[in-house]
Structure formats: structure tokens, C-alpha cells
């Protein structure tokens, strides 16, 4: 009787300990990372795609994945943390900066995440990173490109993607290349065919910073900006914006638009029979899978800056392998945005592995010292290595062009950098007939 009581006593003690300190007895440790994306509202489509890419990457890291030639695919968890699994906790900021900040606080205080990732919209990343900074929690930003974000002297913020200054420089290099005959399949054009530049950018943090950056480079490269438009991406009608653009008969039209406004803008311009020589979009709306799915062949000849084009698989094996996994699961190719989400989660895994701890200080140190080799990335980058501001200095951009194939489908071909070009550029922009 006494013996049974003792056994019972120890069982009760054991169970209560288990209840009080589950991590002590947990079979597998997990590391929580808070990921903020726009999962509802006007940007829900991109949020969903980003979430899918992030989840797929976490799966690759957490389980041994054959057929992917990246070391992390054979890890089955974070090696230096005893095989701990990465658990992504998603939060929906709906594209609202104040909501993003609230959610970040909740993720840090309630969900006890070891770090943050996101938030796609630069405006939201700005407020989220401010919260992370205040709490001393590391944030790795995968896909916000406003240059200002890494100019704020933050100690807990790192960005893997190149920013808009780098992309806009690429744009002007391409324009310059056109005048010098460097572009595949296009003879040199006199500069006065491209001199007259007009832009329309959405008017939040991201679009206005793109506008500012375009201004700077136009001056540097000697192009003349004849129309500057900042517009509200949630406007029910963009006719007046499109009219204003067309009114100056620009040779070059540049856009920084999210998805809904890019669709509306192109439809509106088409209705006006607008014509120009060079039609370029700054990523975001222009390079999403839904952009082509929705507009179809109306996108023929449209250029977009990006960081990833499925055709990169021709020169980069791992890009093709990860893309194939994604495509098999979700039916779409990876895009510049979703591929950056892959790199974001991957960077988190490498950083955690290097830190060998979930202590914020250790992670901070690891972030500052991390150096991910080019071969491990799906991107055509030289690697991931942060400078003192937290900006990855080894990233680079691509410029792609949507081109109609013989079968009437649309392919995204690489046009810039010139040495990676996969097709002749269509120039001038064919317009909508």
C-alpha cells in the first residue's frame, strides 16, 4: 500500500513537472520565428504566396529533403541547436503599419518568438523593425526595398534583399546599355529616343522612395524627367493619373505599383491606346504570378525588375530544384518576391546555426558575421553578408521582360544583367493593339 502511494506520488510529481516545464521534456525543441505578411486585404494574394514560400523553406530545413543541393536540405533541423525545428508563426498585418507594430509586440511578448521576419510593405517593415529594436529582438527583412530602411542606424535589423537604389541603378544601366548597343538583340539607339522619362509611383514609403531614387539616377545618367506622379494605390480610378502620364508623350514610362493598381494602370493605359518605347515596373505588382495570370498577353514587352526569374535555373541548379518543389506544391513558379522569402527563412536558419543559441545577443553577433555562400542560394547573388547598416552587400537585381511565346503564352525572360540575358529584348515596347 505504502509502495503504491510512493509510486503514485512520483507519477504526480513527474506529471506536474511536465506540465510546468514542457520544454524540459519536449522531444524536439522548436524555435519560433514571427513572420508578418499581408494575408488579407488588397495584398492578400502576395501574402499567401510569400507564406507558402516561407513554409516550404522551413520544411526543407526541418526535414531531410533529397534532391536539393543546399547543405541545409540535409540538416533535418538546426544542427547546432540539437536538431531544433524552425516554427514560423504567421501574423496578418493587412498592409497597415500600425497593425504591424501591434502584431510585432504581440509576437515578441506573447508568442515569445526569438526573432521576426517580413513584412513585405516597406511602410510596415518600418514600424515593425522599430518595435523589434525597442525590445532587442532581431529582425531579418526579406522583401522590403525602401533604401531608407537600413539608413536608420538600427542594431537589430538586417535586410537580405538589395534595395531600390541598387535596382534603379540597374534600370539606368539598362537604359544606358540600350543607347550603347549592349542589349541582346537590340541595335544601339540614339539617346534622344529615350530621353523623355515619366514615372508614376504609389505614394507610401516604398513608392515615394522609388520616385526619389529615380530622380537621383536620372540626373546622374542624364535623362530628363518630364512627369512625376505619386498616386494612391487604393484609388478607385486611375484615369487622371494615366492621362497625366500620357500627356507628356514619354519615351520611358516607369512604375512602382502594387498588384491591384498595376492591373488597373495597364488596363487604363490600354484603353487610351498609350504608347511609349520603354515600359518598366519596379517589381511588386509587376512580377507577381497573378500579374500575368490576370493580364495575359497584355503584358507582352513589359519590363520588371526582380531578383529571381525561373529561367535562372539554366545557370543555377539549386534554383531549379527549389522552384520545382514549389511549383509541384502550388502550381506557380517562384517569383522575385517569393524567392526572397525562401532566402529570408534560409538566412534565419544559417544565423541560428551559427549562433548556436537563441539568445538575442548571440543571434545579433551571428547576423553581423554571417556569410552565406553563393552556391547555397536560389538567387543569382554572390551570397549573403551584411554591412554595418544591416544591408546585404552581395545581392544583385535582374530585369526581366514578359514575352509572348509562339503558343501565345507569356514567359519572363532575363534582359539584364547583359551576360545573363536569356532572350532578345523586345524594343520598342509593342503597346496594345
Amino acid at each position, binding site marked *: 500500500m505504502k509502495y503504491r502511494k510512493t509510486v503514485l506520488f512520483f507519477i504526480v510529481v513527474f506529471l506536474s513537472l511536465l506540465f510546468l516545464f514542457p520544454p524540459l521534456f519536449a522531444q524536439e525543441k522548436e524555435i519560433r520565428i514571427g513572420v508578418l505578411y499581408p494575408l488579407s486585404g488588397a495584398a492578400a494574394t502576395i501574402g499567401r504566396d510569400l507564406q507558402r514560400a516561407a513554409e516550404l523553406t522551413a520544411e526543407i530545413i526541418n526535414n531531410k529533403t533529397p534532391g536539393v543541393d543546399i547543405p541545409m536540405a540535409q540538416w533535418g533541423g538546426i544542427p547546432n541547436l540539437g536538431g531544433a525545428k524552425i516554427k514560423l508563426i504567421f501574423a496578418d498585418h493587412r498592409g497597415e503599419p500600425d497593425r504591424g507594430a501591434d502584431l510585432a509586440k504581440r509576437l515578441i511578448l506573447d508568442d515569445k518568438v526569438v526573432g521576426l521576419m517580413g513584412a513585405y510593405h516597406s511602410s510596415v517593415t518600418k514600424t515593425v523593425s522599430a518595435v523589434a529594436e525597442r525590445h532587442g529582438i532581431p529582425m531579418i527583412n526579406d522583401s522590403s526595398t525602401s533604401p531608407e530602411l537600413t539608413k536608420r542606424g538600427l542594431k537589430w535589423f538586417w535586410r537580405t534583399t538589395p534595395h531600390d537604389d541598387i535596382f534603379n541603378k540597374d534600370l539606368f544601366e539598362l537604359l544606358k546599355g540600350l543607347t550603347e548597343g549592349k542589349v541582346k538583340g537590340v541595335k544601339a539607339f540614339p539617346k534622344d529616343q529615350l530621353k523623355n522619362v515619366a514615372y508614376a509611383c504609389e505614394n507610401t514609403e516604398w513608392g515615394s522612395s522609388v520616385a526619389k531614387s529615380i530622380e537621383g539616377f536620372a540626373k546622374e545618367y542624364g535623362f530628363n524627367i518630364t512627369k512625376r506622379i505619386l498616386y494612391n494605390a487604393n*484609388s478607385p480610378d486611375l484615369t487622371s493619373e494615366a492621362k*497625366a502620364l500620357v500627356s507628356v508623350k514619354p519615351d520611358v514610362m516607369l512604375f512602382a505599383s502594387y498588384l491591384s493598381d498595376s492591373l488597373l494602370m495597364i488596363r487604363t493605359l490600354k484603353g487610351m491606346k498609350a504608347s511609349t518605347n520603354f515600359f518598366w515596373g519596379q517589381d511588386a505588382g509587376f512580377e507577381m504570378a497573378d500579374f500575368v495570370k490576370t493580364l495575359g498577353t497584355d503584358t507582352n514587352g513589359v519590363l520588371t525588375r526582380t531578383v529571381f526569374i525561373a529561367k535562372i535555373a539554366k545557370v543555377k541548379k539549386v534554383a531549379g530544384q527549389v522552384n520545382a518543389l514549389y511549383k509541384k506544391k502550388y502550381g506557380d513558379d517562384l517569383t522575385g518576391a517569393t524567392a526572397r522569402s525562401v532566402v529570408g527563412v534560409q538566412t534565419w536558419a544559417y544565423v541560428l546555426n551559427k549562433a548556436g543559441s537563441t539568445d538575442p545577443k548571440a543571434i545579433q553577433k551571428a547576423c553581423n558575421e554571417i556569410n552565406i555562400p553563393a552556391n547555397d542560394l536560389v538567387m543569382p547573388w554572390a551570397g549573403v553578408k551584411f554591412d554595418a547598416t544591416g544591408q546585404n552587400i552581395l545581392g544583385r537585381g535582374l530585369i526581366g521582360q514578359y514575352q509572348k511565346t509562339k503558343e501565345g503564352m507569356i514567359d519572363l525572360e532575363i534582359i539584364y544583367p547583359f551576360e545573363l540575358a536569356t532572350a532578345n529584348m523586345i524594343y520598342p515596347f509593342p503597346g496594345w493593339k
Partner: protein
Amino acid sequence: MALIDALLQGILMGLLFALVALGLNIIFGVMNIVNFAHGEFLMIGMYTTYWTSLLLDIDPLLTLPVAALVGVLLGIASYYSLIRYLLRGPAIAQLFGTFGLMLFLRYLAQFLFGIDYRIIQKGLLIGKSLSIGPFIFDWTKLAAGILSLFAFAFVYYFLNKTKTGKALQATSINKEAASYMGIKTDKMNAIAWAIGGGTVGIAGGLLANFYYIYPTIGILFVMIAFACVALGGFGSIKGVFFAGLLVGILEMVFPVFGSLVNSDFLGPHFKFTIVYLAYFIIVVFRPQGLFGWKN
């Protein structure tokens, strides 16, 4: 020339804005209820046109009767299943009730149709433009403007020339007196919701010809519709018509004017500031709106 062009384009958009706002105003006029779900009715009209034209492989313009019918049924169903019960509660219940309906319809659409953006690719007028001298009109917008005008004329005729329409107006002016005269308030309310749903259904069908379709699209237009209703006068059909036109013209002419005088300050990013400024001024000097008579 650019200003005349902007004026014409503004009128086309304005007619559509007015049609969107019309249903909102009729419901408010008759029942004193603000229908927050109005934008979602619009969204459902758009999806109706999209799916009908896609599945039956017919021109999107031919689907307008279907969109109108779906709108009418939606209006009636909303009234009999929800609004009628809300009327028994305090005013705040009506506010929350239609707000709840808005969320329900929005997320139901998201659940059923997903969060992908859709655009109608095929249609008689889609992608075609009409050039008259220096002016270029998108055929879909031209058709939307003209058909909106017809829809408006039809509703105006119905309200002023038919017995039911007059009864509806009587209820709108004085519910109690109308019911003493033997007009059934309940029936009138249902008719108001039917017209409200039907007109916004047509507006959605027209809009779907040149606009992208998305579960949360309603909010973009319903804000404008609220401004039109307040600007034109609560309950006034004439008012909402002119207010819609005014909003359309202001948002189109203002940025073009700014562009002519080469001012970045008068750019398109402030176009709705001007619209709401006009609203503010009118509300200060004429609180009942341009043609309103209700307090």
C-alpha cells in the same frame, strides 16, 4: 482641350459613381439605415458578371440582367433575413448589423472565390477604344456611363411615375402617415432593398468590364458612394446623380489642371482631397446636401 477631355472622362466615371451610390441613398431615404454592406453588393455584382460571362461564354454586357437579378435577390434576402429584425433594435444595432453583413459577404467571397485578382478578358467592348477627334474613349467606360444613365432614368421613372414608386416616396417622406394611408411599410422596405441591390448589381456588372475583381473591392467604391450620398443629400435621387457627376469630374479635372499649370502640388495624389474638401464645404453651408431635404 485636355480639360474638356478630362471633363468628358469625369462625366463617364461620375455616372458610374452615381449609380453605385443610388442604391445606398434609396435605402437610406426609405429606412434611415446606412447599408455598410453596399460595397459588398457591388463586389457580388462584379463576380456575377465575371462568372456568368465565363461559364456561359457570353459577352459580359449580356450578363447585366443576371447581375441585376442577383442584386435584387440579395437585397430582398438581406432585408427579410436580417434587416427586418434589426429594425426592432436600437439604431446602433442597425449599424453593427449591416457592418456584420459586410464582413460576412466579403469573407464569404474570399472563401468561395479565393484571393486571386480576376479580370474579364473577352468581350465585345473589352480592349477597344473609340477615337473622336483628339478624344479617345475606352468603349467599356463609355458603355458603363451610358448604361448607368439608362439605369438612373429607369429608377427615376419608377419612383415618380408608378404607384409603387410613389408609395415608396411617401414612405420615405413620412413612414407613419404613409402606413395610415394603407401603404405597407414592410413591403416598401423590401422594395427599397431590392432596388438598392439591383442598381448596385448593375453597377458591379458594368464595372467588371474594365475593372479587376477582388473580394475586398467594395470598400474602394463605397467610400466614394458615401461621399456622393452626403454631398447630394440624404434620400435625394437627383442629389446623388449630380453629386456622382461632381465627384467624377472633380477627381478627373483637378489633376489634369494641375498638370497643365505644371504644379506637382496639384497632382493626382490629392485628387480625393479636393472631392472631400468640396463635401466639407457643402456640408458646412448646406448640411442637408445639395438637394437634400431630410435632416
